[in-house]
């Protein structure tokens, strides 16, 4: 199985089309070199790196607590999940586990963020297919999540809320009430958004049976997250290797066996419903207690020394987000490497987009859920 380099029939005439880096359908700065035979896509070569900031080098140059902001800016629509991924690894290296209450707060925030990230994806996916209306509905609901984030962290998107050994500040009853309110109101709104998509015949016919991804191919390419689950593999890091308090929560992993674009759409919507289920349980179970580990007081933070190495995996909205930290006993990490799920999901695009129509190329690249802050890092 080869991603690039597979030869196309040279005797036929084909057109090479350059899409991007600035193009509304590429969700950021993706450049696609497409070889077209008429309207049929014969070969796609994704070219990335236009948003590359080398966060890994920046992490090596900073203290453990400072590196967190680079993770906020990776998946900028799912900042809480990125922070969580980094802290899971950094706390193992530093030996500072978060207290019980902080873990429950983190679960609530991560799940709220998963909803927000999936809503951005749904709105943008609608735009890819020429549907303008759901975009506004999705963003109205997302704004409600971001309002809760502003209340806890004083920032909308790049929250920088979680910190080493806990969270930045405690959540009070008002915030818990607000989040509860959201979980009460959101499911009905979600069904409205869902219906604007699935009651549209054009939407269904453009996605059903398009972009079939076989499970063996998906695993071979390292595809994870909703894309893998839409191919019929029941795999979720929250269940397979529970972190935080996910093993104390009751939720299902949505799986679809249809393997196409529509399956990926349905899996993501079902995930939002499951996230609401998790938040509702977590709000009821959240215990009292300290919200950060006293070993990681703010004044002591830059003196924290890491030892050994750790690879932590978390389930972000895109898939399995892994952070690998190698420490050498100093106040700065020796090497930080990030497993970007969106990059693996993009790598499978040349395989998915073989012999499809050019219009389907964008519905397929839409379902891979690309956020370029994370792909390029």
């Amino acid at each position, binding site marked *: 199985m080869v*991603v690039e*380099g597979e030869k196309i029939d040279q005797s036929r005439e084909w057109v090479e089309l350059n899409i991007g880096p600035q193009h509304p359908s590429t969700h950021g700065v993706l450049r696609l070199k497409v070889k077209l035979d008429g309207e049929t896509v014969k070969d796609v070569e994704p070219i*990335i*790196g236009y948003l590359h900031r080398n966060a890994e080098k920046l992490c090596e140059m900073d203290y453990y607590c400072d590196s967190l902001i680079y993770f906020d800016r990776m998946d900028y629509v799912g900042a809480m999940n990125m922070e969580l991924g980094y802290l899971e690894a950094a706390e193992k*290296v530093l030996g500072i586990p978060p207290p019980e209450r902080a873990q429950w707060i983190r679960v609530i925030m991560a799940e709220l963020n998963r909803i927000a990230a999936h809503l951005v994806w749904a709105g943008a996916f609608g735009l890819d297919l020429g549907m303008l209306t759901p975009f506004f509905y999705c963003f109205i609901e997302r704004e409600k999540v971001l309002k809760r984030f502003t209340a806890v962290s004083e920032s909308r998107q790049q929250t920088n809320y979680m910190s080493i050994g806990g969270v930045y500040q405690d959540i009070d009853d008002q915030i818990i009430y607000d989040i509860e309110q959201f979980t009460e109101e959101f499911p009905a709104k979600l069904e409205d958004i869902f219906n604007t998509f699935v009651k549209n015949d054009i939407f269904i016919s453009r996605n059903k049976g398009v972009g079939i991804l076989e499970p063996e191919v998906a695993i071979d*390419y390292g595809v994870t997250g909703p894309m893998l689950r839409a191919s019929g593999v029941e795999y979720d890091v929250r269940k397979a290797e529970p972190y935080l308090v996910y093993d104390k929560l009751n939720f299902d992993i949505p799986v679809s066996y249809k393997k196409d674009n529509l399956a990926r759409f349905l899996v993501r919507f079902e995930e939002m419903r499951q996230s609401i289920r998790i938040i509702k349980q977590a709000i009821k179970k959240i215990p009292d207690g300290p919200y950060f580990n006293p070993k990681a007081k703010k004044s002591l933070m830059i003196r924290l020394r890491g030892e050994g190495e750790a690879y932590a995996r978390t389930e972000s909205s895109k898939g399995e987000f*892994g952070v*690998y930290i*190698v420490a050498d006993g100093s106040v700065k990490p020796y090497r930080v490497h990030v*497993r970007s799920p969106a990059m693996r999901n993009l790598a499978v695009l040349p395989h998915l987009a073989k012999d499809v129509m050019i219009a389907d190329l964008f519905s397929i690249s839409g379902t891979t859920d690309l956020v370029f802050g994370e792909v390029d890092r």
Partner: protein
Amino acid sequence: MVEIIEETKGKDGRRNLKVAKENLVELIKDLKSKGYDHLSLITGIDRKDRLEVVYHLHNMKENVYVVVRTETMDERMPSISSLYASANWEEREQYDMLGIVFEGHPNLKRMFLPESWVGHPLRKNYDLSKVQYVNMDEEGNDYATFDPGDGW
């Protein structure tokens, strides 16, 4: 049977296997046949006098992890892109960032940076004070230069 130099347990509880560079492909082939079907991560680490490459392999069905570590003195490593499709991009990324040449890779180009970029940023001796500028030629391909030029 592949000779394993050292077996340790990491801080995250994962099994670490250290092998010689020559035995790497054989070991990974062996692990793949045992059900390690998902290559999670390839990491290159610059240890100043040598380069270390770490492979995180995952068995999806049984949900077990194994970490394969190997070292190279001459910046060359055998490629495993024929075994895992995901290794293709990951090896390109490590080549881009650390300059590890994966022998037998079908398309070893830089992943993020332009082809004409000088140096590999994640090397410990990379000179950060030298600014390089990225520009675009007539065909739409990027190139890097030390000259600020008119565009800047």
